[in-house]
């Protein structure tokens, strides 16, 4: 509650939080079918119809309602981003905590492996994974999770290393607390603040990567809608039907902006030391 209040008190938190909340509502409405039209329904007579009272954002080449597709597209992008970031966070926590705790060879092996993964441009790594498994929604989830796991591992390992030597951890050991208890209770809880910031920012990147993959035709497959896919479909029609380009383009931009703003605000609120620090 206090966190919500401080987010609202922070100027960029207010804007970012509002955007994210709005997108969440839109995504949920899209998922439960509260769209103006059936997003897959093809209104053959009204193909490439300009925005109007019936079709708020016009229709595409197959006569499908752009507004409805945008709604489920946002839902789709959100599902992929949330799932992949959740996966990356869990993997990152497990790898980072154990690397910091056990140290030595285990630490070395994990961190070198993460270096290898980080060595790739994100999109290339995702591409590699997708070609192995074949394109699709859950492949993108895996690919994006894979790309961002090293970042979470680093975010966890750094502070965990310094937490490990703190007195309260030593104290917990002398009490005879179990390893799992210390790791979850004393280490993980102290990492919640940096992780929250990282998760929010990673959601922005994940949206960006998901859009890129779908745009290249390697993410969500037609006839499903996703923002990147809608843009790639709009590519050759943009002079004839600019609404196909403009609405999804701004939907992506504003959505990512929302998470970035929220992430910045959270960083200011949760980690006062890094105020105005390097992005």
């Amino acid at each position, binding site marked *: 509650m206090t966190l919500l209040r401080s987010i609202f008190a922070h100027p960029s938190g207010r804007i970012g939080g509002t955007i994210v909340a709005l997108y969440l509502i839109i995504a949920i409405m899209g998922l439960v079918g509260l769209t103006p039209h059936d997003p897959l329904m093809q209104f053959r007579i009204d193909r490439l119809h300009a925005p109007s009272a019936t079709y708020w954002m016009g229709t595409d080449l197959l006569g499908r309602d752009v507004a409805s597709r945008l709604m489920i597209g946002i839902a789709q992008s959100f599902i992929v981003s949330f799932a992949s970031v959740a996966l990356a966070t869990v993997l990152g926590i497990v790898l980072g905590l154990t690397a910091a705790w056990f140290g030595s060879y285990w630490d070395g092996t994990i961190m070198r492996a993460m270096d290898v993964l980080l060595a790739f441009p994100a999109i*290339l790594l995702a591409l590699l994974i997708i*070609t*192995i498994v074949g394109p699709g929604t859950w492949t993108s989830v895996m690919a994006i999770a894979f790309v961002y796991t090293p970042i979470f591992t680093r975010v966890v390992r750094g502070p965990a290393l310094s937490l490990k030597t703190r007195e309260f951890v030593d104290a917990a050991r002398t009490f005879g607390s179990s390893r799992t208890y210390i790791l979850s209770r004393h280490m993980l809880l102290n990492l919640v603040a940096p992780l929250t910031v990282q998760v929010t920012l990673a959601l922005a990147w994940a949206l960006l990567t998901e859009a890129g993959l779908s745009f290249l035709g390697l993410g969500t497959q037609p006839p499903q809608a996703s923002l990147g896919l809608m843009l790639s479909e*709009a*590519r050759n029609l943009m002079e004839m039907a600019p609404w196909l380009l403009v609405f999804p383009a701004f939907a992506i931009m504003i959505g990512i902006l929302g998470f970035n703003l929220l992430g910045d605000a959270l960083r200011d609120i949760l980690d006062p030391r890094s105020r105005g620090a*390097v*992005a």
Partner: protein
Amino acid sequence: MNYLTRRLVTFPVVMLGVSVLVFVSIRLVPGDAITAMLGTEAGLLTPAQRASLETYFGMDQSWFGQYWHWLGGVLQGNLGISVTYGRPVLDVILRVFPLTLELALLSMIVALAVGLPAGVYAATHAERPSDLIVRIVAMVGQSTPSFVVALLAIYALSVWFGVLPAMGTFTPLWEDPLKNLAQMILPALTLGFAFAAAVTRISRSAMLDILSDDYIRTARAKGVPARSVIWHHALPNALIPVVTVSGVEFGYLLGGAVIVEQVFALPGLGRTVLDAILQRDYALVQGACCSSRLIS
């Protein structure tokens, strides 16, 4: 310095890891290169023809044998033969690489030329409306995927100015610099846009930190005029983090090049890798991934 030596020491290990990862993962891809190359005609190959092709591309050996063979070749400067191009991989890479490098460098120039002054301006006008505007633009820039920028730019150009970006056959820089730059300017602006946003944010926060440092107060106490305080005393110090981050981000620029090259149909390294993955051109993917790693 410490960071650099550490990087140099771990570099061979990381490179080896990268090559193994790429090697294993592309061989996990279903389908084989000969089918991908010849399409339906592959069905017409006699077993003997197929076997000789497999021998030619080294596909009859075990994975370990293939990797060992490949590694041995790399150390002699031989990256193998590309199935799709029918030419040595090194040749293919060297042909497409200059374009990507040019694209990345141009984008970097765009980013620094826009981002640095914008960041300095925002820092010296901190918390004023103009600072807020710069920060908002930078935030939007960082939140926009490069292909969205590309599409919006193409759309704006064609609708408002009636011009289409000079696509068509790509002209290398050394053949016709002007024509080349005309083709490269939009991709470079597109790729540079997000990067410029990052540079703006970094230089703003670096400048803000430095403007409150003691030696800036000393300069003021000496009677140095405000403009000179900013450009001569503060900026050289602010450049240090900006350059560091730019170096790191240069690698990401190469990744971003994959999408931008795709949108603008530029025959660069990114597009080649993408095609190679889709064509299952093992040797080319391997060579291209490792060489893109090598420079970033």
